[in-house]
């Protein structure tokens, strides 16, 4: 385990070293900046209250979009998953809508929700809702019929069946969906920010690249990337915790 970890750290160190050498001696500093400068620039960049506010805005957008995706996704998935008729009717429709490349309708979101945060929230939520719906539906449909028959024959009430049998499957599906939803919601919010933005992260990435300010651009992006990895790891741990019983069962 120790060996694996040190090899991972070493690989990252080698990558950073290549980046440092390339940026210092081989590539025009207008386009790329070495990691030593980028990491030094991060605290300075965040001392700027405008940048700090922009990052805050983007993360509030992400949080609201994610909450909407989870609540709406579960609200749609439950009725679709719980009955065979609704499942057979609605599931192919959901898959069909899911196949639309959503980026193409981004201008509509801007048109309907404006240039500010609401369009980013709506676009992010429209990405996150699909993994939630699909995984919760798959979770409900994977309940083994024999468990339901057993519980009923032993006199379980409807509420007991839902709480003791269906709910664990729903939760396992929900947490699996939440991990995927987190990364696509972030993608949706970032796409909308980059497409048009008046104050968020997208505004600053645009400004830094127009000014050929590679150091600040990379500093901002590095922070975003690290936050994305941390968020993903958090949701992955949650998923592992709530999905453990299901793997043990196989």
């Amino acid at each position, binding site marked *: 385990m120790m060996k694996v970890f040190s090899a991972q750290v070493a690989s990252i160190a080698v990558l950073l070293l290549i980046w440092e050498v390339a940026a210092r001696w081989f590539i025009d500093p207008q386009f790329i900046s070495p990691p030593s400068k980028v990491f030094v620039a991060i605290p300075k960049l965040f001392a700027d209250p405008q940048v700090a506010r922009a990052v805050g805005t983007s993360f509030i957008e992400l949080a609201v979009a994610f909450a909407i995706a989870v609540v709406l996704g579960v609200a749609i998935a439950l009725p679709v998953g719980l009955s065979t008729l609704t499942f057979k009717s609605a599931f192919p*429709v959901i898959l069909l809508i899911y196949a639309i490349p*959503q*980026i*193409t309708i981004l201008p509509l979101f801007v048109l309907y929700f404006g240039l500010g945060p609401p369009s980013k929230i709506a676009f992010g939520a429209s990405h996150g809702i699909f993994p939630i719906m699909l995984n919760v539906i798959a979770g409900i449909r994977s309940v083994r019929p024999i468990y339901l028959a057993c519980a009923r024959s032993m006199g379980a009430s409807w509420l007991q069946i839902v709480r003791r049998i269906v709910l664990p499957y729903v939760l396992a599906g929900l947490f699996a969906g939440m991990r995927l939803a987190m990364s696509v919601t972030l993608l949706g919010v970032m796409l909308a920010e*980059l497409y048009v933005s008046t104050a968020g992260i997208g505004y600053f990435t645009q400004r830094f*690249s127009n000014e050929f300010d590679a150091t600040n651009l990379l500093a901002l992006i590095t922070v975003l990337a690290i936050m994305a990895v941390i968020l993903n790891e958090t949701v992955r741990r949650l998923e592992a915790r709530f999905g453990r019983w299901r793997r043990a069962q196989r």
Partner: protein
Amino acid sequence: MTAQPLVRDSRSRAIQIAFFAAVLAAWYAVTAAHRISPLFLPGPVQVAQQIGRIAHAPTLALDIAYTMGTFAIAYTIAVLGGLAAGYIVSTRRFLTRVYEPLLASLYAIPIVVFFPTFILFFGTGPNSKIALGALYAFFPIALNTIAGFTQVDSRLVAAARSMGANDALLLRRVLIPAAFPIVATGMRIAFIACFASILAGEMIASDHGLGHQIAQAGQMMEIAKMFGYVTLVVLAAFAFNFGVSALEARRRPTA
């Protein structure tokens, strides 16, 4: 999760058709009654007219060629790189344990945030989109290649070895056929991600291509025209999805 047998169920099929008919009817009714400004939601007739106009415009073929050319280069790079990297990482247990989690973590980063640096580096031409599309497609292919090759039943490998198969024969006759379904899934996910990210790149910064046309029409408030282009792209995506599903359905009985 197969959609095929579900669709054949006549009652749910009727509900699906009714659903789409209702959506279309509501769209027509709302726009025909002038309850919504055509700037917000153009009617289906207007959109159909625009599609006709787009189809006759000489720019359509150029835009399609531009976008598909960019896509083909990006996807080819991602397939070659992803298969090679994934296979190498899968050959040693140690490499898999080191690099699989690293690749999976990197995959969690929304790569599109790097797009401004790609524009700095490669300009607003096709190269910045190739970089974005190839990176987006690389990860699912590499990760699924690792998953595909590491999940091959070790008894199959042992059996082939005991019957005297060398490395090349083992790869061709055992490893590749066993890993193929998972690798193919990765390539399919990558195909969609690559196409969508190239459209995204064209929408954010480009002078040509289908994505550029959509963004341009949106910014000019020519919403009917934008709907027209969106419809064409969505139909292309459906056609592709349908084609792949049909291919997979044909493969399944023999597999």
